[in-house]
């Protein structure tokens, strides 16, 4: 009788004793617990938490914000701020993808292009995207499209943030294609263009999707950082504004909105992946 089987049996019995809907309850418990700890820290002034804001106030104001009340006196609604930030992420990541995917495919499949492009880009990669902001502010103007002003510096920072994960993942994916797939296609009569279209592209797609998923995540990180510094409208701006006005509930509301939208956009990329790669979603062995 080993200790292993003992603990296994205890684990089993423990598992059996819990009723089946516990998973949902446990998840809810973790959220409630988090809010409770926040409230206790606020109530009893752990660290400087008494200067912060009560979760109750925050949740009430969050509900108000979702109902469409402006976040600050005479300011914009959370929806407008969210739309601005989301648009920056979408456009910045979009541009990054349009540039990074073809470049990555070329660098990943051609030694000559790798030598030409990779060293320079690799030198830029370790620079945190937000460090580009001062240069971007000088170099890029703020475009005015009718009544909407589009500050390009923040967009550029998002672009830089999203570019490298997409680029490096595309390169890795293209480099690691099994040679025999290429050979099989060639022996079946495929030209080099067809090898690219029917082998290189689909074989690299999973890595491209991984890169996009990371790129979108970095897009949200960088957009908030850039908006903290460049102003609004935007969720990063509203976080900064809440802090300046000593209205910490606005800070938290901004954070929650960024979290929710970040999560939603990664789901969107996942959906895109399933749609582009139907072969990866079908169930295994029929026979």
């Amino acid at each position, binding site marked *: 009788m080993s200790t292993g089987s003992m603990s296994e049996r205890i684990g089993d019995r423990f598992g059996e004793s819990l009723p089946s809907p516990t998973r949902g309850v446990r998840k809810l418990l973790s959220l409630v617990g988090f809010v409770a700890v926040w409230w206790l820290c606020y109530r009893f002034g752990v660290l400087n938490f008494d200067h912060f804001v009560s979760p109750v106030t925050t949740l009430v104001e969050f509900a108000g914000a979702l109902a469409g009340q402006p976040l600050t006196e005479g300011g914009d609604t959370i929806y407008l701020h969210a739309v601005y930030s989301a648009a920056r992420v979408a456009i910045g990541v979009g541009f990054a993808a349009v540039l990074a995917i073809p470049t990555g495919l070329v660098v990943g499949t051609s030694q000559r292009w790798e030598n030409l492009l990779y060293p320079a880009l690799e030198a830029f990669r370790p620079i945190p995207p937000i460090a580009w902001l001062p240069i971007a502010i000088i170099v890029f103007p703020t475009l005015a499209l009718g009544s909407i002003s589009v500050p390009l510096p923040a967009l550029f920072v998002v672009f830089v943030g999203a570019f490298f994960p997409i680029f490096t993942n595309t390169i890795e994916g293209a480099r690691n294609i*099994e040679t*025999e*797939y290429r*050979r*099989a*296609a*060639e*022996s*079946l*009569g*495929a*030209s080099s263009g*067809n090898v690219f279209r*029917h*082998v290189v592209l*689909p*074989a690299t*797609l999973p890595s491209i999707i991984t890169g996009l998923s990371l790129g979108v995540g970095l897009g949200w990180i960088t957009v908030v950082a850039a908006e903290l510094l460049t102003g609004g409208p935007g969720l990063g701006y509203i976080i900064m504004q809440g802090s300046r006005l000593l209205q910490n509930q606005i800070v938290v509301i901004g954070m929650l909105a960024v979290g929710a939208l970040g999560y939603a956009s990664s789901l969107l990329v996942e959906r895109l992946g399933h749609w582009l*790669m*139907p*072969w990866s979603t*079908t*169930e*295994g*062995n*029929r*026979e």
Partner: protein
Amino acid sequence: MNERDTTNARTAPDEQHTDSADEKFRSWTESSGTGTVNIKDMTKVYGTDGDELTAVDSMDLHIEAEEFVTVLGPSGCGKSTVMECVAGYLDPTEGEVLVNGEPVDGPDPSRGVVFQENRLFPWKTVTENVRFGPQMRDAVDQSRIERLFDQMGLEGFEDSYPHELSGGMQQRAELARLLANDPDIMLMDEPFSGLDAMTKELMQEKLLDVWEDDDRTVLFITHDVEEAILLADRVVVMTARPGQVKDVIDVDLERPRDIDMVTTDRFNELQRRASESIHDEAERAMEQAEGRA
């Protein structure tokens, strides 16, 4: 027996076709007479100065059109290298490889290849895989593809992805993909080595059927003595690295063959001879592998 019937049956509806369809069909089923492979004094060295590895050393081998040749050798003897040079993936360091009298210049659809591991495109359905070759050559013949699905027992799996098929089925689909292109020469690099014993036997019989129906040249690489004799007109035994032709065994067993032949006296005699021939080479190959480790 069943397979014979289905393959014969497919000639019937075609007799009613127009002349051009008949011609097309004939060109598929009847030999075009091409398909000779001539390996002349071929040497293949990998790597560069200081770190060289001679995989194949001055190898000579002539394969007649429509001949089935198996190359039998210990692992790491360079037998795959021979196939890769015939396929056009690699250039020999010295000597040359002639196909139909012409030097090989890159891969070509007239030389179909089946790899050791299944290389159906995982991102294409079975149909898309089988259609790939004809599609690349702008010569898709739907009725022929349907016949291949029938012949290979793939009906019902047209829209499946390769990972949804069993190992044997994947191998049949890969064979169908190759046959869709109607190659003169089939190059097969240990294609059945990853299959279980039962599936392997079935695949060997399937391949023999295919080969006996439409005359093609086959160069089949294997390390399995029984498989080498069962399939081949001639078994070429290779030495350990650097690979050379050590022995050529003419297999005079009658055709059509089936798996029951492995118990006959003549088969055993040939098998004994091949085993003896390869035994020392396998030992040498093993020593080489240990020396490298």
